[in-house]
């Protein structure tokens, strides 16, 4: 049904009631409740958009409303507001006591995007994720989810917003005593949704666990447990899926299959996914954009491709520690976009310039659907100008790597 007429009449009552005397507003409250009742009887559950619920906050504080909600929890179903910006965070600050865990966090996530929040453990990424769905309160700044400011919601409306945001966890957090079916059905039970049986089987089919429906969770492997977790998170048809280190407890092969599943869900359901992880390969593989955190501060924010092809100094400090550089000479990092990665650039350069250089290391990586490669070479100081000139002519992405201080002192000591 379209809630507009009902909502308008309800809101009209509210507007008048604020101006009215206390006794009048109480009467109106009752009227409003009657309207709700009538609407429910006629149309079934009222579907509210997230930005609507804010208008109902004062209303909801009435005991009457609260009692009604208990007797009819299915009466209001939050629907998607259709907004483009699913999540918008401005100047977020959060601290535990005197310890600041997050500061000056700005980010936004578009609909259908896979957004990565990356950093070492203790960087505040899980806390940031919990601020998004209201599991953690924040000190200052704004967190708007589907155009609703999370901090402005009372507990009842926060719960409704949370029902639109699924969450999966590193340790799966399934109920050990229940079987797969009951675990997936759990959120449906909480929200008194009808047709549980059908919905659960649908979800199990989506994650490929139909045959395991009646098995105990304990008997499943890690990857299967995470699939159950994903099915459970999707049970209430959320618009946003939050993944808290979802693949950190899994082996590489299982990780890959879970990532495939998430990618598939993202495409099929146009689900917005926010991934918290410390695994760079996960980010490169899946995330469209990312936020790199260190010590609660933003180190980098932007498109995954751009950030990894041209990392800033701060980002390098966190991301790059895979190769030990050779002391002496100049270390150059070459990056190959897809069109170039197939050509044998390096050997051509050696032949064209007639110089020698050593190869420190290199890798081909998959970013989303593209393959990018990079190679670190070490060039003798007398050849450096020729090499750089050649690289410029070839239009390759390159950068000179600074020799890390720690390694330099180590080398000097030897």
């Amino acid at each position, binding site marked *: 049904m379209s809630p507009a007429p009902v909502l308008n009449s309800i809101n009209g009552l509210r507007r008048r009631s604020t101006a009215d005397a206390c006794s009048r507003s109480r009467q109106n409250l009752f009227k409003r409740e009657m309207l709700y009742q009538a609407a429910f009887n006629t149309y079934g559950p009222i579907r509210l958009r997230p930005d609507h619920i804010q208008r109902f906050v004062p209303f909801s504080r009435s005991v009457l409303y609260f009692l009604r909600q208990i007797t009819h929890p299915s009466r209001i179903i939050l629907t998607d507001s259709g907004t483009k910006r699913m999540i918008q965070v401005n100047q977020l600050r959060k601290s535990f006591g005197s310890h600041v865990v997050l500061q000056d966090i700005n980010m936004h996530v578009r609909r259908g995007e896979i957004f990565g929040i990356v950093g070492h453990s203790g960087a505040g990424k899980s806390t940031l994720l919990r601020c998004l*769905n209201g*599991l953690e309160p924040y000190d200052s700044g704004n967190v708007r989810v589907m155009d609703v400011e999370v901090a402005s919601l009372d*507990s009842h409306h*926060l*719960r*409704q*917003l*949370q*029902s639109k*945001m*699924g*969450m999966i*966890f590193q*340790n799966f*957090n*399934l*109920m*050990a*005593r*229940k079987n797969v079916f009951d675990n997936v059905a*759990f*959120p449906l*039970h*909480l*929200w008194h949704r009808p047709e549980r049986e059908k919905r659960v089987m649908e979800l199990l089919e989506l994650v490929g666990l139909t045959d395991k429906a009646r098995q105990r969770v304990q008997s499943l492997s890690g990857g299967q447990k995470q699939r159950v977790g994903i099915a*459970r998170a999707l*049970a*209430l048809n959320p618009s946003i899926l*939050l993944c808290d280190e979802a693949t950190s407890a899994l082996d590489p092969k299982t990780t890959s299959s879970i990532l495939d599943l998430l990618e598939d869900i993202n495409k099929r359901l146009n689900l917005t996914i926010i991934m918290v992880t410390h695994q760079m390969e996960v980010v490169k593989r899946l995330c469209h954009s990312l936020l790199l955190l260190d010590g609660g501060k933003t180190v980098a924010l932007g498109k995954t491709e751009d950030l990894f092809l041209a990392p800033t100094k701060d980002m390098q400090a966190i991301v790059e520690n895979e190769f030990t550089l050779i002391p002496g000479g100049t270390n150059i990092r070459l990056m190959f976009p897809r069109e170039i990665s197939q050509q044998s650039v390096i050997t051509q350069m050696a032949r064209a310039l007639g110089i020698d250089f050593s190869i420190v290391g290199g890798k081909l990586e998959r970013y989303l659907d593209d393959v990018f490669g990079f190679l670190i070479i070490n060039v003798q100081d007398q050849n450096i100008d020729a090499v750089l000139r050649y690289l410029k002519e070839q239009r390759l992405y390159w950068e000179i790597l600074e020799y890390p201080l720690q390694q330099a002192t180590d080398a000097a000591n030897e």
Partner: protein
Amino acid sequence: MSDQLSTLAQLAQDMHPLWERLQDKMPEILMATWETVQMVLISTFFSLVIGFMLAILMIVTNPIGLKPCRSVYRIVDFVVNLLRSFPFIILLIAIIPFTRMVVGTSIGSGAAIVPLTIAAAPFVARLIETCFLEVDRGVIEAARSFGASNAQIIFRVLFPEALPSLVLNIAVIAITLLGYSAMAGTVGGGGLGDLAVKYGYNRFQVDIMVYSVIILCVLVLLIQGICNFLYKILR
């Protein structure tokens, strides 16, 4: 066949005057056993009810709980600790006026239920609180992330998840109450403890005391057995 049996019984009777006494006291022993069972069952039930409510209050107001409230938690915590540190035999006598107020008398197994319940309730509260605290925090967080209310978390997450260990703890409580009920017998509480003291101690009929001890042992084994069985099913 029946002749042979009756001669055997005759023989036993002749050889053991104890056998005669057992036959003689059988109804009394059975009655005492029934009283004990009654006391334990009823006081376990009431202490579970009170203890459960206290445990919920503690788990909700716990500093790491669902709705932290330090002052309430401290008060409940203090009361629980205080009541638990009371030796039962003293509690039994100390609350006689209260017992009289509740059941109208301070003698008999009915009256013993009151101090038994009061002694066990804080114990139960502590055990249930521990069971609840042992539930994986992650599962609670997962439930919260789907928008579960605090009541839903208690009754749909904490309670079902803690049920197996709750059952084991109920065995601990029932067995403790069995011991306490025997203690209550010494001050006129009725039941097996009363029987053992009355005949075994005051009249030097050691055999009656041995019988009551054997029955108590069987009851303990029975309680533990049933709870272990339930635990296996529920786990």
